[in-house]
């Protein structure tokens, strides 16, 4: 019953995404693309945050590294989009491996502060290594060359074409993250969140698992970053700033931290809400702050948490089986 419902919902959502791509206006496509990129960022981040229980303030750095890696490859070596994205992912992988190696030595506030420090180091490097990164101007003129696949090539220059490329990565990311979350590895990560000491006494190398979660989330951040560089056709040094690292946290919180769909729903609401607020006031920070306050004080499970609570009340079912992976 429940499984059928979920599968129907997935198919309907995918159909919705495709219909939007075919008939949506250019602005709707643009916003949807940004929502999907933010979702990839936030869902990947949530492997570390919601699943493993580590709060990072430095994942903006990997987003930026992904974007710059992608852009540098595109500008200097080969503009093939897939190759560029892979280059961005590789760079994000290397950075998150190195930074993660140091950061996973600590937890809680110490971890948060370490990631903040390393993230701001990356920000500072991007800002200062002007010959490579273009300083605050960033790298401009990243083209959306067609994807050459031997016999045929797929153009992605137009908004709706690029939209489908992002849909592809979006769906792929959801699938991969879902599998990781529900894999043996994912269960271990949940164990780390619940009781990290006990993980070691289960015979598991705690730091290596933390590092793996860190790197996976870093690579997804890199994917989001490289897609954003393609979308906006430039890179922004501020994407490495800590204030950008706070975005997936906000998104997860709005949607619901320990839920699979939370970051996804959160991204939709985050982008959409801000768009709505900006339509009637330039004081968007005030309104956004108030909404954030309301969520933290009143709806701590996030939107998904509230929805599943309502769902539970309606169905009157027991509390155990309703937890979402």
């Amino acid at each position, binding site marked *: 019953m429940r499984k059928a419902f979920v599968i129907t919902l997935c198919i309907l959502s995918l159909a919705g995404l495709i219909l939007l791509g075919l008939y949506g206006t250019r602005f709707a496509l643009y*916003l949807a693309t940004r929502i999907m990129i933010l979702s990839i960022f936030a869902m990947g981040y949530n492997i570390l945050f919601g699943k493993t229980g580590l709060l990072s303030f430095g994942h903006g750095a990997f987003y930026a590294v992904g974007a710059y890696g992608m852009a540098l490859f595109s500008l200097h070596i080969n503009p093939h989009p897939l190759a560029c994205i892979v280059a961005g992912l590789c760079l994000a992988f290397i950075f998150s491996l190195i930074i993660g190696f140091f950061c996973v030595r600590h937890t809680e506030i110490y971890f948060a502060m370490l990631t903040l420090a390393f993230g701001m180091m990356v920000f500072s490097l991007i800002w200062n290594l002007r010959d490579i990164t273009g300083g*605050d101007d960033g790298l401009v003129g990243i083209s959306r060359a067609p994807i050459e696949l031997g016999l045929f090539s797929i153009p992605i220059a137009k908004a709706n074409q690029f939209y489908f490329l992002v849909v592809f990565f979006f769906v792929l990311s959801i699938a991969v993250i879902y599998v990781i979350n529900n894999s043996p590895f994912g269960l271990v990560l949940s164990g780390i969140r619940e009781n990290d000491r006990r993980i070691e006494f289960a015979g598991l190398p705690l730091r290596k698992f933390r590092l793996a979660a860190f790197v996976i989330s870093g690579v997804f951040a890199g994917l989001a970053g490289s897609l954003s560089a393609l979308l906006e056709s430039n890179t922004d040094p501020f994407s490495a700033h800590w204030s950008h690292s706070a975005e997936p946290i906000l998104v997860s919180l709005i949607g619901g931290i320990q839920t699979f769909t939370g970051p996804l729903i959160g991204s939709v609401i985050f982008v959409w809400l801000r768009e709505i607020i900006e339509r009637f006031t330039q004081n968007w920070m005030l309104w956004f702050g108030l909404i954030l306050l309301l969520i933290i004080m009143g709806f701590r499970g996030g939107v998904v948490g509230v929805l599943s609570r309502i769902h539970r009340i309606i169905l009157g079912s027991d509390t155990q089986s309703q937890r979402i992976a």
Partner: protein
Amino acid sequence: MEEKGFTRRDFMKAGLLTAAASALGPGVLRPTGLWAGTSKIKGPIKVGYQAIMSGALAGYGEFHKMGVIMAAEEINASGGIAGAKLEVQFRDSTLKKPQAIKNARYFVDSWGADFLAGVDSSGQALALAPVIAELDKVIIITHAATEKLTEQQVYKKGIRQIFRISSPTYQDGNAAAFVAKDLPAKSWATISPKYEYGYTCWRMFKNTLSILKPGASFIAESWAPFGTTDFRPHINTILDAKPDGLYSTEWAGELITFVKQAKQAGLFDKIKHVMFPVGAAMDVLEGLGKEMPDNIWISGRYFFLYPDNNQNREWVARFKKRWNHYPAYVSETGYSAMFAIKKAVEEAGSKETRKVINAMEGMMLDSPAGYRIFRKEDHQAIYDVPWGLTKTDPRYPFKIMGKQILVPAKDCFNRPPFEGPGTKPPF
């Protein structure tokens, strides 16, 4: 050769028109209702305007808005643009590029803007360029100064939808060098923002001055990161080098902080020749008040006491009456951008992008800052802004630009094709 010819012709045209306009006298810009009878353009003319409206630079957004709202009021009171109403919507651009891009896309694709305008940050302006090409609407940049926008994006890449009404880095770098060559200072140093704008202006200043005055030397640089509140280490760096002159492209709040701290450290007693290319901004002059030292060289994108003609005086008076404020330079560029749109649409007889671009290329605009010509090749508005020395004036609660030197824009702006001999001043 031909491109050079274009330029010369443009300047000749400007000269002729200047003569003609001065013959007509003031009031060219006055709302007159002249256009009430001309062919109507369908629907309102919508302009999407973005500027920084939050955080430390929020004051700039406010100044933009004052100029733009006043222009819209005047235009609509006198019958609109070719009979059509001018509508403006504002959005906060923040400093992040994705925000600027989202704003532009919202304006065009969702709100239905016919024109875009504004933009403070150079990085954002560069990031917007390909988006503008895709959206295919004319944007008038009113503040972002990077020369890369017009030289590379417009001239080289041919994104013809971009125009800039404010003066670019040429005014801050090259024009400053023209002023500096006549000063007795031989060695120069800088304290400037640690980002592209700061680097570019200093490089331009150095290059131009070393040609104009071969003996000049550049002995120290200190770069202040964005958001610096403590300039004392930078001031120490400069004082250690003991230069004759200081050149600084610090701007907005950071310039206020810098001047106050430099004054305390006695920098202005030790270094006699100090140049602030963006020192003539109203927020800086008002923020410093009497604390701005006398005899500092300042300039800007516009200064409300220049040009000293009736038209500008009346405009400043109107502005003061409307907002109880002197116009900042972004108020003027925002205001004039609206009139540039008005003129271009009316000349084109349409708000269609192609036609408007054709009308705007080489178009001459009479504005509070004087006559501007949008150079055909790179869409940069050519107009003159003075450099001058700060002085006390009992009529104002802040320092004003006293003795003024005018380096004509045609002498200090880089020229197309922007590469090779004869494209960079001195010519």
